[in-house]
């Protein structure tokens, strides 16, 4: 297929359809309405179904039902709506169902604002809803990567029988870039028939009971440990990241994800021209977090700078990775305000010169 100029939100919707998703349940919220709008027009063209739910709570339970019946299903929302979906997500994780959820993050807390932010990192990567579970979390930095990750997300969700979150922000959703959908794309994981799905019991298999209720504590503990083993397998096999300049010499390592990493990338160019040596690690999977790659890259630097559109959330994982061996500093904007390449470059110069170590 030829490259097409597409808005990020629409590219993600199209990617879901290319991945065989024929069901979308969602509720309007800015700044991600282009996704449900695209799906409402596009799904009927491919024999699919779009339902505008009465709430995000309902939408999260509709995807629970559809996934339990064995079909690929997508929902999307933005921060306050994702909070409402945490009920369904906890049940989906507990019942081991594959769903893909796109969060186009906006600034919070509460109603917050409608401009881009990265304040949902904790919610996305540390569980989010109640109980002891994890979602696979993937964070794109371009429209092409968003489309690719959405397609992979469906395979990963099916493979692990687990929710996969695409964590973007308003910039990813709104910006237009060329995107290409490969006609010969193959699943990124081996997929098996969904024999566990509730498709009507005819006696030829155990009854399908889609459930997260275990009143026997020993049974629930076994279930918790089974889930933990699955999350451990994700941590072993699903780490994704990109690195810029980490094979050379540098004084400052910058860690950033999503669109902020685009800003850092531009800053690195400017810094190189100014003769300041810096490198970047960009986590693509936020759970699992690339602890080992960050640790390795940090050891070559005299300072680490974490850049986020929050007051500092991913920085906690970076500190865990670095383990106190190198000072970890923070630069961020909040409320929908953005970091500029100049902001980042100025801070990196300070750190390279041995200043600003108070953080």
């Amino acid at each position: 297929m030829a490259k097409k100029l597409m808005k990020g939100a629409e590219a993600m919707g199209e990617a879901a359809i290319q991945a065989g998703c024929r069901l979308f349940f969602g509720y309007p919220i800015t700044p991600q309405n282009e996704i449900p709008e695209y799906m409402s027009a596009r799904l009927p063209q491919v024999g699919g179904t779009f339902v505008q739910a009465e709430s995000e709570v309902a939408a999260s339970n509709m995807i629970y039902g559809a996934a339990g019946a064995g079909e690929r299903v997508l929902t999307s929302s933005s921060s306050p709506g994702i909070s409402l979906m945490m009920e369904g997500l906890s049940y989906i994780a507990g019942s081991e169902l594959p769903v893909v959820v796109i969060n186009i993050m906006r600034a919070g807390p509460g109603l917050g604002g409608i401009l881009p932010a990265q304040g949902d990192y904790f919610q996305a990567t540390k569980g989010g809803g109640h109980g002891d579970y994890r979602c696979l979390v993937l964070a794109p930095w371009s429209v092409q990567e968003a489309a690719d990750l959405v397609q992979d997300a469906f395979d990963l969700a099916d493979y692990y029988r687990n929710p996969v979150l695409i964590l973007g922000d308003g910039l990813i959703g709104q910006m237009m870039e060329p995107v290409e959908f490969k006609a010969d794309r193959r699943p990124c994981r081996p997929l098996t028939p969904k024999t566990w799905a509730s498709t009507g019991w005819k006696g030829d298999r155990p009854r399908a009971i889609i459930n997260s209720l275990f009143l026997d504590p020993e049974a629930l503990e076994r279930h918790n440990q089974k889930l933990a083993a699955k999350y451990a397998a994700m941590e072993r096999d699903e780490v994704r990241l990109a690195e810029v300049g980490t094979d050379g010499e540098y004084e400052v390592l910058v860690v950033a994800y999503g669109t902020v990493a685009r800003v850092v990338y531009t800053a690195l160019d400017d810094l190189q021209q100014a003769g300041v040596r810096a490198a970047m690690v960009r986590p693509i999977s936020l759970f699992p977090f690339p602890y080992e790659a960050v640790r390795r890259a940090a050891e070559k630097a005299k300072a680490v700078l974490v850049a986020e559109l929050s007051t500092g959330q991913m920085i906690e994982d970076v500190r865990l990775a670095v383990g106190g061996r190198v000072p970890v500093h923070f630069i961020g904007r909040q409320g929908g305000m953005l970091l500029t390449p100049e902001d980042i470059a100025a801070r990196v110069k300070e750190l390279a010169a041995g200043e600003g170590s108070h953080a």
Partner: protein
Amino acid sequence: MPETLVFGKPTALTEVPTHYCPGCTHGVIHRLVAEVLDELDLTRRTVGIAPVGCSVLAYNYFATDFHEASHGRAPAVATGIKRARPDLIVFSYQGDGDLASIGLSEVLHCANRGEKVTVIFVNNAIYGMTGGQMAPTTMPGQVATTCPLGRDVEQAGYPIRIAELISTLRTPAFVARASVHSPLHAVHAKEMIRRAFRCQKEGRCFSLVEVLSTCPTNWGIPPAESLAWLEQHMLPYYPLGVFKTPEGPDRAPRPLAGGA
């Protein structure tokens, strides 16, 4: 003379003994649903949805595929299953706390979208599993653990009549209220449940049957007297009959023949 089996267990029920309290009418309602599934030849393509409440373990008792829903969301789960697999027969089985309180939005919108699913709504005027708290359907003056002096309508309002409420929607539906406090009423209830599932089988409309039920344990009334209490206190407020059919906006309840 060869022996002929004239009465047996529906294939849509499992062999598992239920956890329901003595005198509870959930067992009767389970059986009526199971008989209808068998008689309409739906059992092998049915997916049920259990609520949060006394019937949370319904998936142990119905011999069909099942989903356990979070509190009140069964109609949303039903929507997801039915839209994913329109060939399946999908029903939710919900109590009054689940459906009329925390899940009111889900059932109302499910009905309003005209989802081709069936809701069995068991109204026993109290929260059972959590230990007898006031429900939206608790009768005025009825004692519950969160209204120890009886439901005060000045504070808590009047009981919600779900069948009436759903039947105000313009979208075609089958909506009825029945009761199982006597064998005659149980026969009528089964007929309402049959009509509801037939509407789904024929792909016609949303269907909901509200079934009045007893809770001797949390009402604090012995089983036999509970049946009389239902008749005396609930029937006048919750009239039985068909409130809406897919053919038209039939909002006047048709009373059960022989008086209810």
